């Protein structure tokens, strides 16, 4: 992630440059597709998420405010939002996908964070990835159900049988640990 280069590319996209959109695609398609596949599993759905994300980048580049969000943060949270949306719509046609990856309940309404207010630097992303891998299994699984499957506290409690209070405590503890990694 090169933040300044990203900002210049977004500015060029806002001015109608297809080439700049292509360069942003080259920089981020791997992570967008990887995240989408983590959420929706099916390749066709994941490719549609990629389409949705870069279409929105093209459409909304003019509204992007660099002082509020890093391009990486914006794009990755767009990808997560679109992937959860698609997971939800896929559930209307479950016969096409019986995979465990789509087995989680999806939220009925979008509750995703505003992707335009997320900032993250490359070293912080690496620290989060490392710390996530070291979380106790029973915390990491709950974080994954929330972030990659779009489940709320009570949905996780209802589906896992883990008491609601325990779900809340484990998710908070895990998030605090991950937050600590930002400063490292």
């Amino acid at each position: 992630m090169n933040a300044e280069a990203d900002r210049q590319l977004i500015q060029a996209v806002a001015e109608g440059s297809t080439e700049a959109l292509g360069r942003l695609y080259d920089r981020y398609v791997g992570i967008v597709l990887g995240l989408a596949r983590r959420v929706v599993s099916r390749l066709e759905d994941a490719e549609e998420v990629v389409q949705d994300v870069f279409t929105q980048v093209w459409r909304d580049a003019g509204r992007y405010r660099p002082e509020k969000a890093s391009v990486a943060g914006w794009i990755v949270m767009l990808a997560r939002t679109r992937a959860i949306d698609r997971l939800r719509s896929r559930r209307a046609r479950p016969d096409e996908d019986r995979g465990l990856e789509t087995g989680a309940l999806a939220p009925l309404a979008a509750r995703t964070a505003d992707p335009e207010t997320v900032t993250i630097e490359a070293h912080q992303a690496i620290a989060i990835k490392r710390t996530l891998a070291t979380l106790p299994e029973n915390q990491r699984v709950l974080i994954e159900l929330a972030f990659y499957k779009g489940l709320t506290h009570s949905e996780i409690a209802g589906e896992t049988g883990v008491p609601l209070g325990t779900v809340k405590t484990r998710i908070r503890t895990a998030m605090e640990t991950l937050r600590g990694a930002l400063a490292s």
Partner: protein
Amino acid sequence: MTTHDEFAAAAAAYAIDALDRDEARLFEAHLATCAECQRDLAEYRRVAAGLGLAVDPAVPAPDLKARVLARATAQPQSSVGIKARPTKSGDGPRLREQDPSPNALENARQSGRLPWWLLAAAAMAFLATGFYAWSLRTQLAAVRDTANLAATEARDTRAAMANMRLDAARLSRAVDVISSPDVVRVELAGQATAKSATGRAYWSRTRGLVFSASLLPALPAGRVYQLWVLAPTPVSVGVLSVNPDGSTSLTTTLASNLPPVAAVAVTAEPGPAGSAAPTMPILLVGAVKGTAGN
């Protein structure tokens, strides 16, 4: 949630959309007036972005870029973006130069003929009106599309709710295994003709086995993938139903008297029922390394 401490605890969950709707509304109301929670939330959103970036990148199909760019750039850009484009500043003055003068109009009326520039201006006005009407029709069609989409989404949501109930039992079994205290994670690596395939299993001695794999290559007609646990002798877990993209998953209980599982493996066997004993070569295998921590 009534105290600041409770709201502070909610910020972490809010950042990953884990709050239930009512809790989220309460938190949002508090957030508007609490600088400390706003700071906390900004940090936790960084964590959320980090979780998004923590996934392993995937390699896109070679033709995906062309498809994505073609469809994306066919869309109109937001007005802010359009404003940023350079404009042709000469258009205005040129039009004004062609404003009809009173003398010219008077001459035309007397001669009974309209000058060429007035006809051209009329034609331009006609075209502009036509374009405006076309633009309105396009917008109306877009509004109609949006309404249809909303109706479709409402139907999808109702269907999704029905399907959720059907899937809940299966999911519950899977999560029961994954969240059990004695769960062990097993990473499986592709072998032989399935080198690009990967798999993951969660084995709990008390609750069963959850298995998923991706990128399994298509098999010749009449052959099926079969899942085994080595305990340490091979015990069939079942035949796998593989999606067209090569992904598969299976959740099952295991016999309570099964000896400890040393490895999980997948082979190709004669279909549709599979074999009593695995046929070499093994196509996907992973060893049980130790119990996961809590």
